[in-house]
C-alpha cells in the first residue's frame, strides 16, 4: 500500500489524457503483448511505513548485539563522533548525484577536494582520487594501474587480507593477467621469497598490507627497496588509523598507497558501505582511476572546484579505459573527512596510540594465562594472533558476556583491540578466557 507517487489518481488520469491516452497499458504499446507480466508480481502487498518499521526492526533484533567487539580482520569497531554521524545524514549531501554540474554542487566538490587533501596528508602521497569501493578493490585498481605492456604479473603478500587477495585475483582473471602470492614467514611477508619472485622481470606491481592480516607490522621500507630493485611498483595497503603514527607510505617508498577507509568513521554495517582510498605520487597522477576533483576558477575569477581529468574516465575512453568505475563512495569519503577533521592530527594519533596500547595490554593479559601464547614474534599494531586451546568454547563463553571475541584462525584467535574498548572489558576478557581454559 506504500507509494511515493505524489500525483493523485485523478491527476494521473488527466495527465494520461493530456498525452492522448486512456490507460496506463497504452504507455507500453512497444512491449510485445506476450511478454507483459499478466498476473503481476508474485510478491506480498506493499506495506505502510509503520509496518516496514515493525518488520525491519524485528529483523535487526534477530542479530546478536554485542556490548564489546574484539574482532577486526578488515573491519574495525572505532568510536564514531556524533558529528561524524550527523553531517553525512544531511539530505543535501545524502540525496545528490555525482557533482556533474559544478555550479550546483560546490559543497560536494569542495568536500571531496578536502578529502583528497586529507588522504594525501595521511599517506604522504601527492594525489588522491575521490574514493573507490573498498580496500580490496583499491588494491585491485592499484594493481591495474601499475601494469604496463611488458610487465603483466602482479604479486600480493599472503599476509594480505584473504578478501583482498581474492578480489585482486578476480580482477586479474578479468584482464587475463597473472597474480602470484608471496609466501609468509613468521607472520610476515618473506623478503627472500619476494626477491626471487621479482627476478623474472615480469612483475608490474607488488601489494603489501601494513599492518598485515595477522596484525604484524611489515618491514615496509625494506620490502619497498626489494620491490624497486626488482623493477616493480610498490602498492602499500595501510590501515588509516595506524597511518597516523606509522611511517608513511611515502617514506616507505610506496608508489601507490591504498586502504580500507572504514575505520575513519564508518559503522561496521555487516561489511558496507565502506571506503577504498587510493593515493599516488605525482608522476602516476594520470593513471589514477576514478573520479578526481580539481581546483580551478570560475567566470568571475573565484576559486571553485570541478570533476577533473575526466579524459581518463570510461565515459570518454570507453573500451580503452583501464577501469569502469564511476559511482564511488563519495558520502563515505565525506564521512572520513569529517572524522579526520573532528579527530585532528592529535586525535588521530591518540586513537592509534590507544589501539596499540590496548592491544598490547590484552595480549599481555592473555599470554599470562597458561596455554596462551603469541603466534608471531614481530611488532604489531592493534591485532595479534594467539595460540590457545578450546577456541570454540572460549568464543562461546565470551559471547555469554556480550563480547564478540577475536576471529578463529587455524587453531588460534586473531584478536583486535581499539580505543573504544575499556580496560574493564579487556580484563573481563582475560578472566573469561582464563576460566574456560582452567576448566
Amino acid at each position, binding site marked *: 500500500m*506504500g507509494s511515493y507517487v505524489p500525483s493523485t489518481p485523478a491527476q494521473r488520469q488527466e495527465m494520461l489524457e493530456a498525452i492522448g491516452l486512456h490507460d496506463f497499458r497504452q504507455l*507500453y504499446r512497444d512491449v510485445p503483448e506476450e511478454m507483459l507480466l499478466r498476473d503481476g508480481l508474485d510478491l506480498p502487498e506493499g506495506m505502510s511505513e509503520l509496518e516496514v518499521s515493525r518488520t525491519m526492526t524485528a529483523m*535487526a533484533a534477530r542479530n546478536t548485539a554485542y556490548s564489546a567487539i574484539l574482532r577486526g580482520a578488515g573491519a574495525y569497531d572505532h568510536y564514531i563522533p556524533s558529528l561524524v554521524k550527523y553531517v553525512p545524514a544531511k539530505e543535501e549531501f545524502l540525496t545528490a548525484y555525482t557533482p556533474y554540474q559544478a555550479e550546483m554542487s560546490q559543497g560536494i566538490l569542495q568536500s571531496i*577536494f578536502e578529502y583528497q587533501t586529507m588522504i594525501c*596528508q595521511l599517506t604522504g602521497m601527492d594525489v588522491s582520487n575521490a574514493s573507490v569501493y573498498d580496500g580490496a578493490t583499491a588494491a585491485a585498481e592499484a594493481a591495474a594501474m601499475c601494469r604496463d605492456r611488458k610487465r603483466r604479473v602482479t604479486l600480493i603478500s599472503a599476509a594480505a587480507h584473504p578478501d583482498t587477495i*581474492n578480489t585482486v585475483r578476480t580482477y586479474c582473471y578479468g584482464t587475463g593477467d597473472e597474480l602470484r602470492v608471496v609466501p609468509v614467514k613468521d607472520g610476515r611477508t618473506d623478503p627472500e621469497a619476494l626477491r626471487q619472485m621479482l627476478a623474472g622481470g615480469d612483475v608490474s606491481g607488488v601489494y603489501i598490507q601494513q599492518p598485515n592480516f595477522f596484525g604484524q607490522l611489515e618491514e615496509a621500507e625494506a620490502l619497498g627497496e626489494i620491490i624497486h630493485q626488482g623493477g616493480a611498483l610498490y602498492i602499500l595497503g595501510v590501515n588509516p588509523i595506524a597511518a597516523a603514527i606509522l611511517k608513511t607510505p611515502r617514506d616507505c617508498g610506496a608508489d601507490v598507497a591504498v586502504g580500507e577507509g572504514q575505520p575513519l568513521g564508518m559503522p561496521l554495517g555487516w561489511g558496507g558501505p565502506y571506503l577504498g582510498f587510493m593515493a599516488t605520487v605525482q608522476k602516476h597522477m594520470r593513471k589514477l582511476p576514478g573520479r578526481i576533483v580539481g581546483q580551478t576558477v*570560475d567566470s568571475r575569477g573565484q576559486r571553485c572546484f570541478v570533476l577533473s581529468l575526466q579524459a581518463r574516465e570510461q565515459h570518454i575512453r570507453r573500451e580503452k579505459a583501464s577501469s569502469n568505475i564511476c559511482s564511488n563512495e563519495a558520502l563515505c569519503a565525506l564521512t572520513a573527512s569529517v572524522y579526520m577533521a573532528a579527530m585532528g592530527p592529535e586525535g588521530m594519533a591518540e586513537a592509534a596510540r590507544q589501539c596499540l596500547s590496548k592491544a598490547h595490554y590484552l595480549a599481555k593479559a592473555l599470554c599470562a594465562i597458561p596455554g596462551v601464547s603469541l603466534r608471531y614474534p614481530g611488532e604489531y599494531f592493534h591485532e595479534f594472533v594467539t595460540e590457545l586451546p578450546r577456541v570454540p568454547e572460549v568464543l562461546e563463553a565470551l559471547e555469554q558476556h556480550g563480547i564478540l571475541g577475536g576471529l578463529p584462525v587455524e587453531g588460534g584467535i586473531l584478536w583486535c583491540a581499539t580505543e573504544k574498548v575499556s580496560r574493564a572489558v579487556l580484563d573481563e576478557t582475560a578472566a573469561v578466557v582464563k576460566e574456560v581454559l582452567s576448566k
Partner: protein
Amino acid sequence: MKLIFEKSVPGRRCSILPRCDVEEVQLPQELRRQEAPALPELSEVDLSRHYTELCQHVHGVNCGFYPLGSCTMKYNPRIDEEMAALPGFAGVHPLAPEHAVAGCREVLDTASRYLCQITGMDGMTFQPAAGAHGEFTGVLLIKQYHDARGDHQRTKIIVPDSAHGTNPATAAMCGYQVVNIPSAADGCVDLEALKAVLGDDVAGLMLTNPNTVGIFDENILEITRLVHEAGGLCYYDGANLNAVMGIVRPGDMGFDCIHMNLHKTFATPHGGGGPGAGAVGCKAFLEPYLPQSAILSEGEHLQVRAFNGNFLVVVKALAYLLTLGREGIPEAAENAVLNANYLMRRIQGTFQPAFDRICMHEFVLGLEEFKKETGVSALDVAKSLIDRGIHPPTMYFPLIVHEALMLEPTETESRETLDQAAEVFRQLYQLAHTDPETMRTAPHNAQIGRPDEVQAARNPILRWQA
C-alpha cells in the same frame, strides 16, 4: 568558501577520546612516522558551521527537482535511512558468527526474493558496490561460464554504439574485445548489424532496454534469441529498469544476467557519488559463478569486493521494496513513464523531442536546430536551469542525438512540479530568442559562474597546500 584547512588553528581541537586507561605503548622508532599528519585543527563549532556552509551549496533530490536523465533521481524516503541506522544493522561486524547475523541474512534473502521476482532471475548477489561494478560482475559471470565449458574462443562482447560508456569499459576490464554495432535511428538494435557480427567468437551482448534514448526495443526477443543461437549470453544493463519493473521482466526478454542500481531504481540515495549498490541477478545456470567472500566461504569463487557488499544500502532498498510491494512496483514504473511523456508533451512546441513518439521513463531533446536559430546551446539551457532551481538534465548524451538534453523526471515528481518545469523551459525558449547572451553566460544566481574546466585539466590542482 574557505577550505577547512584555511580555518585550521594550531592546537585547536575537539574532545573525543578519554585518556588512555592502560599503560601506553610506543612503536619502535624505526616504524614511527616523523610527524603527525597535517590534518586540520578545529573545534566542533567550527566543524558544524563549515559543513553547514558546504551543504547549503548542494542540491539533492530531496531538496528539489532533479531530472538528470539515466540517473533515476527519485525521492529517497526517510524511513529507509532510519532502518539502515538501526544499531541492530549498523553495528554488526561482517565476520560475526553465522548465528549472530540471522537478521542480516533475512535482509539479503528477502531483497533477493523481491529482485529475482522483478527481474525474472533465479539468483542474486549484493557484493557489487555500484552499477559499473555490477556490470563487471555480470560480464565475469559470462566469462566464467564459457571458461567452465572450455569454450575459450569467445573473445568478443557486442555493445551497441548508443550504450553508456561503462559497457565497453567493462567488457575491456573482462579481457574482451568490444564490438560496437551501430544503432538504428531510434537507438534500437539494428538486427542486420547484429547478425553480421554474431559468431562463435562472441561471448555475449550487453544491452539496456528501454534503451538510452528511452525507447523499448520491440525486437528484444529476436535479439536475445539470435545471441543465444550463436552461443553467446545476454547481459541486461539495469540502468533503465525503472521504466518496466513489474511490467515486463528482463528474464522474460531472454536475458541471462543483469545488474541493477539500487541507488536509482530502488530509491537508495546516491550520496553525491556513492555509495550505491549494484545487485547482480542471473539465471540458475550462472548461479555457481556468483561471487563470494574468500574469508566467509569455502572453495574458490570470484570476488569483486570484501565481505557481502554495501549491506546498509541493501537495507534501504529492502525498506523501499517492502513499502511498494506487488502493486507499488509497477505503479512506480507506470508513473515514471507517464511523467516522462507528460513532461515531454508539455515541453513540445518549444524544444523538440528527438523522437516524436511515446517514450519510456525518459526522453531526449535535440537542440541542434534551436542552437542554429539562437546560438544558444544545450549547455547554455542547462546552466540557465540552475538559476531557476532545477538541476540540469544529462547533457550531450546519448551521442547519437546532437545537442542532446536527456530528461528523466521519475515517478516521484508531482504534476505541479512538471508543470512548473515545463513553464521554465518555455520561458528559456523565449529568452533564447530575445536575450541569448544572458543564457550563454548563465548561471547568474548560482554560487559560482561557469568553471574553467580546461585550466583544471591542464594545470591540475588536486589538493590544498599550505
